[in-house]
């Protein structure tokens, strides 16, 4: 893979917006990889947590938006808990989710969620799932 680095992307409005709503300073990450090492779902992510941070440092927000990472993150905070720099990839991924959801775009259509789940699952799973996947 070859990527072209552009000043306009590194300093883009969407990167600034992401930093603002997530409260995270992307530059703080020094790419130690602890988050990717400890993330319970990183195996399932198309872009691992530390790589998410790297792509965003490089201004490649589109690459990250295309990947499933933000929708797979469970928000267990293991990344934040062990980050030596105090960064929260979970917050960054939530920021990315929010940029989608706040536009009114659903990741999950409520009508597509199996009735079986809605009937049997604990309420908190439904509420939490809606918050994470539905605008």
């Amino acid at each position, binding site marked *: 893979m070859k990527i072209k680095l552009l000043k306009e992307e590194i300093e883009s409005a969407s990167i600034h917006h992401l930093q603002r709503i997530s409260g995270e300073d992307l530059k703080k990450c020094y790419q130690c990889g602890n988050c990717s090492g400890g993330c319970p779902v990183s195996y399932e992510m198309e872009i691992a947590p530390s790589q998410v941070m790297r792509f965003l440092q490089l201004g490649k927000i589109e690459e990250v938006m295309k990947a499933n990472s933000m929708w797979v993150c469970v928000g*267990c*905070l293991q990344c934040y*808990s062990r980050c030596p720099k105090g960064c929260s990839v979970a*917050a960054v991924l*939530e920021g990315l989710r929010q940029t989608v959801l706040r536009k009114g775009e659903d990741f999950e259509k409520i009508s597509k969620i199996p009735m079986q789940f809605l009937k049997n699952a604990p309420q908190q*799973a439904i509420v*939490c799932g809606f918050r994470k996947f539905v605008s």
Partner: protein
Amino acid sequence: MKIPYYPGCTLNTFAKSFDESARDAASAIGFEMAELKQWNCCGATFPLTPDNLIALSAPAKVLSNAGKEGDTLTTLCSVCYNVLKRTNKVLRDNREKRATINGFIEEEYDGSVNVLHFLEVLRDKVGFDKVKAAVKRPLAGIKTGAYYGCMLLRPFEDMGIDNAERPTVFENLLKALGAEPVEFPNRIECCGAHLAMNNEEVVTKLSGNVMTSAVGSGAELIVTSCPLCQYNLEKSQDKVVSSTPGYTGVPVIYFTQALGLALGQPIESLGFEKNVTDVMPLLKKKGIV
């Protein structure tokens, strides 16, 4: 002693046995869980984006109501605990956000309520020695894995209930109940949480890791403090059994059910029949019932 108590939606419906066993246990020990006169859903997730104040208004309303009934509030569900405790911290420490949220919910709440998990009540207010003294049916010889999950412990600087990497509160309670606590590697790893909605595969894998890790360390029983963990573990059980050679399953119960059991509550009052996994064979094998 009367402690204001917030059950939350799930404990009022899906996880009734969690709620009831805790209330009964409390009265057996000698205090009362006084349900808030008025409460609503906490939102079931603490917003990780700090600008998302709207998501804090529901838990703020709960806290504000609690403030009218006392200076502490206890919860059982780890998620409610996480959301309420973290929201409370925001309201206490951030004057600007407090003003906005208060304006929105039309209350004057200042974050003064002390949010406690039921485990904290037992440890710090009652004392495990007193719990131990009340034990009538010790869970002797049951190797029990306490599954903490995520929300009870993390983030440490907000939750502070216990060391985030090497917690002991659960194990100490189990010891007081006469059980043999088993520290297993995945006890603070995620079960898959809300991915239950759209990614069963991940949930099965993560919950499976939790259960096989516990059994691998010798656990015969897992106790939980979160209805979602309970659901995910129990729901994954069969699939994990069929896909993992040598793994035959493990009963999963709420820690309050274990507590009630040890305190000598009638078995039928503990709601074991509502659990998917059957704990009775184990209890019979150990001679507890």
